[in-house]
């Protein structure tokens, strides 16, 4: 069947199976090199293999929870939103979360996802006590931090085996409310200053207006957040300590024609968003859902980009190069006249890992509707990233060239060598791993 990632680009015909237990899963792996697929929220082709894509949707059982430590043992196909739904009322929240709750635990481990608290808490892998992985030959191995299989699998994009179970530690929270502060920053320098002085905020992220140029280039709304304590909530919120009732999700009914998101519309949207944010600047209590998952309330929002889909560009630049690199990236976007609808900037803390994406510095994520022009511009962004010592997030990628990846990230060669030495290359591969040669 036709498969794609969240960006709906690229699309490929893939044989998709959905095993129900370890025995069926092994049979799928015996059929030739394959790749696990969680909930398909990676943007590009990370979870696609034309001859053998293995959906983990039936591995969706929760197994045990320890209310003393917050350790949750689950199968890898369990959806993050279900974890929140189950455990927030008992006072627990995911220790790290991406910008959508429609991801699986397996996908979060394989991409070693980061959240708005990366500068404080690091990536999701830090909260994984162990995983069970089906590797070559169908053997199930349990492995934990410090062991090679674990370290390569966290951030290994499914290329070291299929994670079937995991033990993850949730974080204790008193309420489902977030004390949010919005700080408008008129320039890129001001935005970065805001991040640097907000290092002890638990959550921080900026929405950056990448369509404004000149003196306003890089203007942003920086959003900070803290888990709210019960006694600080205004009475109305205190009546619902686990957060406001779930919002009714709206659905994008069909592909919007390309012109809806033209440059003028995007510019207007961005300007409006910035002005609105400035008006809302200050401290408010917001529910966990709109704070962490603003886009989840519009199901299928990926269709607003129309039939051709969209691509996301996400890189991280080392701290020392961040200002120069980000300025050049924003210049290049402006010069190409290609507005990104959603642009997010975030400060990462230090992280050492075998193949995970984050490192200390600034990460910028931009999405663009697919077109020959936007693809060409992204190659320009690639060059700038490489020139500034940055690297790319594979979970967002559907188009990188192999030499770009390898020149940005020497770890890619080590990853590939490890896969060759252990025979993993013959057992696990995705359209992406073939494309970028890892």
């Amino acid at each position, binding site marked *: 069947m036709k498969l794609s990632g969240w960006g709906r680009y690229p699309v490929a015909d893939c044989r998709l199976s959905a095993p129900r237990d370890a025995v069926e899963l092994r049979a799928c792996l015996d059929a030739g090199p394959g790749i696990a697929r969680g909930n398909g929220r990676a943007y590009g082709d990370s979870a696609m293999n034309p001859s053998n894509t293995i959906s983990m949707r039936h591995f*969706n*059982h*929760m*197994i*045990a*929870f320890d209310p003393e430590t917050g350790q949750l043992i689950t199968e890898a196909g369990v959806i993050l939103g*279900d974890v929140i739904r189950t455990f927030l009322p008992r006072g627990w929240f995911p220790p790290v979360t991406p910008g959508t709750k429609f991801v699986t635990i397996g996908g979060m481990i394989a991409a070693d996802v980061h959240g708005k608290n990366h500068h404080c808490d690091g990536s999701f892998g830090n909260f994984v006590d162990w995983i069970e992985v089906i590797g070559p030959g169908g053997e199930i191995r349990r492995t934990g931090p410090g062991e090679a299989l674990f370290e390569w699998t966290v951030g290994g994009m499914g290329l070291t085996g299929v994670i079937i179970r995991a033990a993850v530690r949730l974080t204790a929270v008193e309420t489902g409310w977030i004390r949010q502060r919005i700080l408008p920053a008129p320039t890129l320098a001001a935005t970065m200053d805001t991040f640097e002085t907000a290092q002890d905020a638990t959550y921080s992220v900026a929405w950056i207006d990448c369509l404004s140029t000149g003196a306003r280039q890089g203007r942003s709304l920086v959003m900070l957040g803290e888990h709210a304590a019960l006694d600080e909530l205004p009475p109305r919120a205190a009546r619902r300590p686990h957060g406001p009732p779930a919002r009714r999700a709206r659905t994008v009914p069909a592909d919007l024609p390309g012109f809806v998101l033209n440059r003028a519309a995007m510019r207007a949207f961005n300007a409006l968003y910035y002005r609105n944010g400035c008006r809302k600047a200050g401290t408010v209590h917001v529910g966990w859902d709109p704070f962490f998952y603003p886009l989840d309330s519009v199901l299928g929002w990926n269709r607003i980009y129309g039939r051709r889909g969209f691509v996301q560009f996400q890189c991280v630049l080392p701290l020392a190069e961040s200002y120069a690199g980000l300025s050049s990236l924003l210049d290049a976007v402006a010069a190409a006249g290609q507005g990104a609808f959603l642009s997010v900037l975030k400060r990462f803390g230090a992280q050492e890992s075998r193949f995970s994406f984050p490192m200390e510095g600034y990460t910028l994520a931009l999405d663009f509707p697919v077109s020959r022009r936007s693809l060409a511009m992204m190659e320009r962004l690639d060059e700038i990233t490489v020139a500034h010592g940055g690297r790319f997030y594979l979970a967002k990628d559907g188009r990188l060239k192999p030499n770009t990846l390898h020149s940005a990230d020497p770890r890619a060669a080590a990853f590939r060598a490890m896969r060759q030495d252990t025979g993993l290359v013959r057992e696990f591969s995705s359209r992406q791993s073939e494309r970028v040669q890892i």
Partner: protein
Amino acid sequence: MTDQPVLILGGRSDIGLAIAHRYADLGHTVQLAARNAQSLSQEKTDMELRYGVTVSLHDFDVLAPDTHEAFLDGLPALPQIAVCAVGYMGDQAESQRDPAAATLVMRSNFEGPANILALLANLFEARGSGTLIGISSVAGDRGRATNYVYGAAKAGFTAFLSGLRNRLAGRGVHVLTVLPGFVATRMTEGLDLPEKLTTDPETLAVAVARAAEKRRNVIYVKGVWAVVMLVIRNIPEAIFKKLSI
């Protein structure tokens, strides 16, 4: 919170399990009945963790009617809602060749389910309350060359449910007939189902629980199926027999 146990006959079926999740989510105790019920322990743990309700497992074979009374006696409590999701599609070609294969399809979809629901109906009637939910099929609305053995059995089951409803209408017992079109489950795995006519078990489960709550009588789940079947039922036989659909 609600002490209204829900019995799921065919507790391993994708549709049955989805309905179990839905009711557990609404706070109901769940009784899962299936062949080799112990193999559902993973489902039990998962549901208990997610919803904080009690889930019990019970061995049940719809093809062994002489065990049905003992099975019901063995339940921790008489359920308030009983759902029959048992079914077996078989293979039409094989059913044509081999009468024993056809019998298995007919017994699994009609005789067995009717037998267990008849017993439950009597118990519910005596108590004066309860809801019976039968998962039948649009295949029972008209016999087609490609699956008329299964369709005939479902037609029988649908008629049985309709009779029960009629009989129990004044007795506090409600009967809901569910006529799903295509549902993406183990039964239809590998078939190329048209997206617009297909639902997933979770959507179906929500619709079923809502329909039971509202005391609806017959639902198709996906509205288009009501239209499709209206058309199919009304094609004159002289034309219908020449069609291949």
